[in-house]
């Protein structure tokens, strides 16, 4: 167990190293740099460009730039953005909680919708209720998030009145106000994601309900709710949990659409701005935080498997 966690932490460091290198070197392929943004493309002399580049260290060989950046990161300092003049650490600290909250809320809500519906659909497999659940969720899944988001935004600002505010309020300033600004963005992500959770739950439950141990349980007169919620569900949870872990990572990295539509100051929107402004420091910090969260969430998922499946206990 301790060894497993240690191994995964080493893995995390490796992942972060690779991610940072890839993002750094790919970033240099984007035409233009911070100097272009700072000095402006019109009316500046080549000398001015040169001076700014020299100050930012952009004239150093790439490997030297990367090493300098790495020195800071190892000490937990992502540097100061040349564009905004603010500390990158501060930017991330303000953006991360927004995205994390949105992802958590969306994961919870989509599970709360998808899991029971999936179980219900599996129990009523190939009957009319199963058909209705699956088609409805398939339709919501087919609507792109930006369409659903814009629709919800319109509905929210037109009809929901006090239930929705378009200005983001941090949790620290009151959970009620915070939820007012979070509820619609959460919904617009959670609805399509719940379709995925429902489908996986249905498939996994159906497979388990056809296993011989279910017949054994029925033959001993076990109650229906035990058969469904203990015998079948406990075995069906492993693949569902894997999906949830992946969903979490994909959501966190794909929030920019929703954050942009609903004007939420999160990591996704921050990254988008950073890329358009060639703010490499902010871009790399954002990417690394997302990658680290993804890996950590999946380590937690891996740690949960042995609780569900005792056969995995010896190997971890």
């Amino acid at each position, binding site marked *: 167990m301790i060894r497993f966690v240690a191994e995964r932490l080493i893995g995390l460091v490796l992942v972060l190293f690779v991610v940072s290198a890839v993002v750094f070197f790919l970033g240099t392929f984007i035409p233009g740099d911070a100097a272009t943004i700072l000095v402006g493309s019109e009316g500046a002399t080549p000398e001015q460009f040169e001076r700014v580049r020299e100050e930012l260290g952009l004239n150093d060989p790439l490997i030297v730039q990367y090493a300098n950046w790495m020195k800071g990161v190892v000490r937990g300092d992502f540097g100061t953005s040349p564009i905004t003049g603010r500390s990158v650490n501060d930017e991330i600290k303000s953006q991360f909680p927004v995205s994390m909250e949105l992802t958590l809320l969306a994961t919870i809500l989509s599970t709360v919708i998808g899991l029971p519906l999936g179980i219900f659909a599996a129990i009523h497999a190939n009957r009319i209720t199963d058909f209705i659940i699956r088609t409805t969720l398939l339709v919501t899944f087919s609507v792109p998030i930006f369409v659903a988001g814009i629709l919800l935004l319109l509905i929210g600002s037109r009809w929901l009145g006090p239930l929705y505010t378009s200005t983001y309020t941090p949790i620290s300033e009151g959970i009620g106000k915070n939820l007012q600004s979070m509820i619609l963005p959460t919904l617009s992500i959670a609805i399509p994601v719940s379709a995925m959770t429902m489908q996986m739950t249905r498939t996994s439950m159906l497979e388990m309900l056809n296993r011989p141990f279910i017949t054994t349980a029925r033959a001993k007169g076990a109650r229906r709710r035990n058969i469904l919620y203990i015998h079948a569900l406990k075995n069906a949870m492993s693949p569902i949990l894997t999906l949830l872990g992946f969903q979490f990572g994909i959501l966190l990295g794909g929030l920019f659409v929703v954050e942009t539509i609903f004007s939420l100051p999160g990591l996704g929107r921050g990254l988008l701005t950073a890329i358009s402004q060639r703010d490499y420091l902010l871009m790399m910090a954002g990417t690394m935080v997302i990658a680290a969260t993804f890996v950590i969430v999946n380590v937690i998922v891996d740690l949960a498997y042995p609780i569900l499946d*005792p056969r995995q206990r010896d190997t971890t």
Partner: protein
Amino acid sequence: MSDDSERNDEQPVLRVRGLTTRFFASFGIVHAVSDVSFDVYPGETLGIVGESGSGKSVTAQSILRLVPKPGRIVAGSIKLDGVELLDLEAEEMRRIRGRTLSMVSQNPLTALNPALRIGWQLDEAHRSHSKTGSKKEARVRTKEMLTAVGIADADERANSYPYEYSGGMRQRIVIAMGMMNEPSLMIADEPTTALDVTIQAQVIELMKQLIEEHNMALVLITHNMGVVANMCDRVAVMYAGEIVEEAPIDELFEDPKHPYTWALLRSLPSITEIDTELPTISGSPPDMTDPPSGCRFRARCPFAEAVCEEHPDLDIVGDRRRARCWVTQRGDSFARGDELLIDKGKQS
């Protein structure tokens, strides 16, 4: 066994009449079990034998009303201690399963839930039927049963998971589970097929001992004639979804009254004739989506006659014996069987 049986002074535990179970599959209707009738008396072991696909497992599933989809019991009556099971509500049926009627299934490796502790799974068999649902009471019984089926350190072993046990041990646990509430009838579907021969013998001994101690009736479903000879009082032979013969065990082996049984017994290896090639039953079982109209064994039967194009009933052919064959019903035997086979060979 017919209604005017000489044992009608004693009430059967299980009385099955005209049981017909079909599978409504996409490729056609499979006539898995057709008009099956038999009785099981208290403390008796009835063997149901037949090849794969003969309908013996579906018969077992039908009795517990656990026929998998798209199968359905379409006709018949199943009475357990006089109660018609086919009329019961789902909840009433649940209360019977595992309490007065239990099942030991085929493959011990897949029969137990891999994610739950053995003790919990055994407890559940008790708690599903106790008024209080008490965990403590259940655990006391669980330990008793684990000890009864020969598992030492019941305390500790109850906390193990199925994967921590061998196949033979798991089958003992499945048997313990079936015995939890001392049922009056247990149905064992190929309980030893998935086990090694030495383990098979142990499990058979264990079952015999438990049956004797608790005066429990057993329906033993198997294709293993050795197991039948070792355990059963009476045997019903199934072919193509029908019972073709029913007889006390000794008489079946001595004097089979249906050509399928006759051929089945001839194809068993014998210790005294090591070098002889084993006769096999020529042909293959009929397509059960469209069973033949006459005698279902006709196409493979060395004794087939014109009359066999009519479907024979399962009729009395002797004391406590029934067979579904025109030849034995009129009093002829298969004593000349081997000669007949040779004659047929010459003709064709």
